[in-house]
């Protein structure tokens, strides 16, 4: 056969292949064993530094179950949907008893959603402008692009709740601090995603608008914006889902929404009020996720048809 003489060594192709294969397996073994050793060392170090020892876990686990047992509502079928009795109180074991503060929670959930919505709208507006400044292909000057990218990195690097902590100190307790905190973080996150979309957009329409004598703003408005708008909308909706979660948490440091109540309930009571608030939050978050997912799919579906 030609191939035997062609390789010049006189070996047959099967043993050559086997030799290569053994060598490859050996090489990969060395790398894999090193990675495994690193992984185990990292694991041991983690266990040591966070004092996550089996006996601590063993001591902790029963307490977790005990705690979750104490915060579960005690519902009884026979009185589950009972309304207020003559004394104006719900009987113990009914949903009404469990959700005694229902309207208070609902007001706070409403505030939480409004906070997320306002923050998403403002952050989207800011991110649109910043994304054109930050994208490498549309930035008016290289130093503006670098400055905008660093600024966005800082904004999304610091978590909302940390901004909230600082802002509560600056502007006082209340939802305003939370909204601003979420605006800053979401602007950073959206600005990065948006500028990546812009970097993938076609520059031909921009050339076209430039050639008719349009300035930078007109080049962005007519050349880029129509191309990226569907993606922007989809990202903004997705960010809204995340912001709802965030605005439920910024209240922990006093920045408005349901968080303050949740933190209060968890820290001072260990009864069914904890599950009452948590359940409401989970339902809200899930409902908004579903709604926004529908909208996004409708948007993308419409795009796919075109």
């Amino acid at each position, binding site marked *: 056969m030609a191939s035997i003489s062609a390789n010049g060594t006189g070996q047959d192709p099967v043993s050559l292949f086997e030799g290569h294969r053994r060598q490859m397996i050996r090489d990969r073994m060395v790398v894999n064993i090193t990675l495994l050793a690193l992984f185990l060392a990292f694991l041991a170090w983690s266990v040591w530094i966070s004092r996550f020892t089996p006996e601590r876990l063993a001591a902790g686990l029963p307490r977790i179950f005990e705690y979750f047992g104490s915060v579960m509502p005690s519902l009884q079928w026979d009185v589950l949907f009972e309304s207020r009795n003559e004394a104006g109180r719900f009987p113990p074991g009914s949903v009404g008893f469990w959700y005694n503060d229902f309207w208070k929670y609902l007001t706070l959930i409403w505030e939480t959603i409004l906070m997320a919505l306002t923050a998403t709208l403002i952050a989207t507006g800011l991110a649109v402008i910043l994304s054109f400044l930050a994208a490498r292909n549309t930035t008016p000057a290289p130093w503006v692009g670098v400055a905008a990218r660093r600024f966005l990195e800082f904004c999304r690097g610091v978590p909302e709740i940390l901004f909230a902590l600082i802002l509560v100190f600056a502007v006082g307790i209340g939802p305003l601090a939370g909204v601003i905190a979420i605006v800053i973080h979401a602007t950073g996150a959206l600005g990065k995603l948006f500028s990546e979309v812009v970097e993938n957009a076609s520059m031909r329409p921009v050339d076209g608008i430039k050639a008719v*004598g349009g300035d930078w703003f007109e080049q962005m408005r007519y050349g880029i914006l129509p191309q990226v708008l569907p993606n922007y909308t989809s990202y903004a909706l997705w960010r809204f889902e995340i912001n709802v979660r965030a605005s439920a948490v910024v209240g922990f440091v006093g920045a408005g929404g349901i968080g303050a109540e949740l933190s209060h309930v968890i820290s001072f009571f260990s009864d069914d009020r904890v599950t009452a608030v948590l359940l409401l939050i989970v339902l809200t978050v899930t409902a908004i996720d579903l709604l926004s997912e529908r909208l996004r799919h409708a948007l993308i579906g419409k795009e796919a048809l075109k």
Partner: protein
Amino acid sequence: MLEFKGLTKQFNSTVAVKPATFTIPDGQMVGIIGRSGAGKSTLLRMINRLNEPSAGQMLFQGREITALKGRDLREWRNECAMVFQQFNLVGRLNVITNVMSGRLFHHGFLSSMAGVFSEKERAFAIRALDRLGMAHTALQQTDTLSGGQMQRVAIARALVQEPRIMLADEPIASLDPLNAKVVMDALRAINQQDGLTVVCNLHTLDTARQYCDRIIGMQDGVIVFDGTPKELTDKAAREIYGAEAEEAFSEALTSTALRPGAVAPAASEARVVN
């Protein structure tokens, strides 16, 4: 009159356009030919300063174009419209908005950001589209059109700029012969009826011979030929095209159907294109 005085373009170490000195009188239709990479596109894009010249001067009616900045530069770009090989329209906007974008220079910041166009502008845009037989597509989304239709929309956009010069960068390179003819006829008509100067980059020799008053041949950034189509002998053409000569000549063979004025563009309508 457009005067070039040693206009040069250098990209890092390579010189794309070596010092070019020539004059284009008003109302002339000029075809620039040469193989790909000869610097045709760079030369054309230097006229409306989409590419910045590295050295030299360019004057229009005695005004120094190469020194313009900011609003003056944009005013100049508005005065010399450009048609691109890939049309460079905004695909996701409708046709009429694309055409009206040709008037953006006359808009203030707020009205252009809000996308508000006057009725007069709408009527003007429709008239321009009608002239190219495209008025019926006015409300379609632009990226649903065929290449030939898009190029006619692009010419309509250039027309609403009310330019004094029309630049066309390989306007027919992405089109089939029939649409290429429609587009070239339209450019010729604009040149003859409106008296506009048209400067057009062309890859195929035949088209340049048939449509242009004057042909400029470029090779490796140097203008090697400047004269009337008659003066351009086959020998001279072969020299300009070099290795690509066979291609340019064979394309010329296939595009013999392209004869100016055989069909009036307004009437051609070109429903065939879809």
